C-alpha cells in the first residue's frame, strides 16, 4: 500500500484471528494489531487527532511548545508528529518507566521532565498541570480530557473494527485515558446496541497507589461509565502470563498491557462458552514488546519477571 507520508499511513491496522487461543469455532478471539502504526502504538491515532484539532482551533502553530503528562506511548507519538510539524515537545513522565521509552522520546527530540515514581501517572498529571500554569503560552493537549483523543477512535478504530468484523459481540481494551474504550465503545454501540464493551485496567505494585490522600485520586475527564459493560482490574502476574501465552501460542510479541486485555478477553470467552453462546471478541494489541525488554518481562520464570516489574509502570 502506498501513502504520501508516514502520517498518512496512520491506522488501517490488521485484525487477526487467534485460532489457538480461541476456545472453539463458535467463540473466537481477534487481535487488532495497533503496533502497526507509525511509531508502533495505538497512541499515534490520539496524538495525530489531538494535534490536528489544536491546529484547526488556532491553538498550535509552528514554533509552539506542546506539554503532556505521559509515561511513554503518547509522548512518543506526539514527539514524532511534533517533529514533523515544527513544534517543541515537553513530556512529564514518572521516573519508573522503562529505559527504552526514555530513549525513544529523546530520539524524536522530546524534552523529558521526570516526576516522582510514587504516585505514578497521577503525579505526572499534577506536575504537568503546574508547569502549564507557569507557562501559559505552552499548549497542553491533555489526553485524559481531550475529546479529540476519543474521537480518533470513534472515527477510525471503531469503523475499522466493524468493517472487518461485522459479527463483533465484545470489544476489550486497556483502560488508561479511556480514549480507546470511549471512542470505539460509542461508535459500536450506535451500530450494534448489544455489543459488550469491556475495560482491562492494569493493577500495579503498591508504589503507584502511594497517594498522600484519597482526594488526590484521579478519574479521566473523558471517562463515561455508562459506555462500559464491565471493567476488570488485572494483576501484573496475570498480564505477564497472558503476554507470554500470546507469544507462545500465536506468535504475537506484545507489550505487557496487552496481556491484561487478553486476560479480560479470555474471561469473556469462557463466560460465553459456559452460557452456550457464540462470540466474536476483538481486543487491542496496544503496542509490541520491544519497549519493555529491559524490564525483564520476557526473561526467566513468571515469578522472576513479576518481581522485576514490581514498582514499574508496566502498561
Amino acid at each position, binding site marked *: 500500500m502506498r501513502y504520501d507520508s508516514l502520517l498518512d499511513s496512520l491506522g488501517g491496522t490488521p485484525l487477526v484471528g487467534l485460532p489457538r487461543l480461541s476456545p472453539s469455532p463458535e467463540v473466537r478471539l481477534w487481535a487488532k494489531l495497533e503496533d502497526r502504526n507509525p511509531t508502533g502504538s495505538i497512541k499515534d491515532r490520539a496524538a495525530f487527532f489531538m494535534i490536528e484539532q489544536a491546529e484547526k482551533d488556532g491553538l498550535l502553530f509552528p514554533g509552539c511548545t506542546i506539554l503532556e503528562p505521559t509515561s511513554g506511548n503518547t509522548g512518543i507519538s506526539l514527539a514524532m508528529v511534533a517533529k514533523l510539524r515544527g513544534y517543541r515537545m515537553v513530556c512529564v513522565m514518572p521516573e519508573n518507566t522503562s529505559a527504552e521509552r526514555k530513549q525513544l522520546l529523546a530520539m524524536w527530540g522530546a524534552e523529558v521532565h521526570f516526576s516522582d515514581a510514587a504516585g505514578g*501517572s497521577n503525579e505526572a498529571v499534577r506536575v504537568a498541570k503546574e508547569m502549564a500554569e507557569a507557562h501559559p503560552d505552552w499548549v497542553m493537549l491533555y489526553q485524559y480530557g481531550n475529546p479529540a483523543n476519543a474521537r480518533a477512535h470513534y472515527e477510525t478504530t471503531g469503523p475499522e473494527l466493524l468493517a472487518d468484523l461485522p459479527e463483533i459481540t465484545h470489544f476489550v481494551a*486497556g483502560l488508561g485515558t479511556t480514549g480507546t474504550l470511549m471512542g470505539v465503545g460509542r461508535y459500536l454501540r450506535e451500530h450494534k446496541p448489544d455489543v459488550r464493551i469491556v475495560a482491562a485496567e492494569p493493577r500495579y505494585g503498591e508504589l503507584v497507589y502511594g*497517594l498522600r490522600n484519597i482526594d488526590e485520586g484521579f478519574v479521566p475527564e473523558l471517562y463515561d461509565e455508562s459506555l462500559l459493560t464491565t471493567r476488570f*482490574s488485572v494483576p501484573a502476574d496475570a498480564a505477564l502470563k497472558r503476554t507470554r501465552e500470546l507469544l507462545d501460542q500465536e506468535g504475537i510479541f506484545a507489550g505487557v498491557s496487552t496481556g491484561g486485555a487478553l486476560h479480560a478477553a479470555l474471561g469473556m470467552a469462557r463466560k460465553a462458552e459456559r452460557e452456550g453462546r457464540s462470540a466474536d471478541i476483538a481486543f487491542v494489541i496496544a503496542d509490541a514488546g520491544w519497549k519493555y525488554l529491559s524490564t525483564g518481562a520476557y526473561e526467566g520464570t513468571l515469578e522472576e519477571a513479576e518481581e522485576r516489574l514490581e514498582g514499574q509502570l508496566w502498561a
Partner: protein
Amino acid sequence: MAIEVRIPTILRNLTDDAKVVEGKGDTLAELFTDLDSRYPGIGARIVENGKLRRFINVYLNDEDVRFVGGLEAELKDGDNVTVLPAVAGGSL
C-alpha cells in the same frame, strides 16, 4: 462467610498496617459495616452518603463492583475484595 479484603497503603493506618483483612457480610455494604466495627473510620473513607467515594474503586474477584450491583453486590464465602484509589492510567 469469610471474605478476604485487600487494603490499599493509604488506608492501612486504620488496619494496624494489615494489607489483607477478613470480613463478613452478604453484601458489600454489610462487609464495609463489619470492617468499620473493627477498624473504626474505614467505612467513611470508602463510602460516602451511601455511595462509593468517587476516587475509590472496589473490585469483587477483580471486577469493578460499580458494574455488578455496587454496594448491593452479593458476596459469597471465599470471594475476594480489593480496594484501590483511582489513579491515572499507565502508559497511556
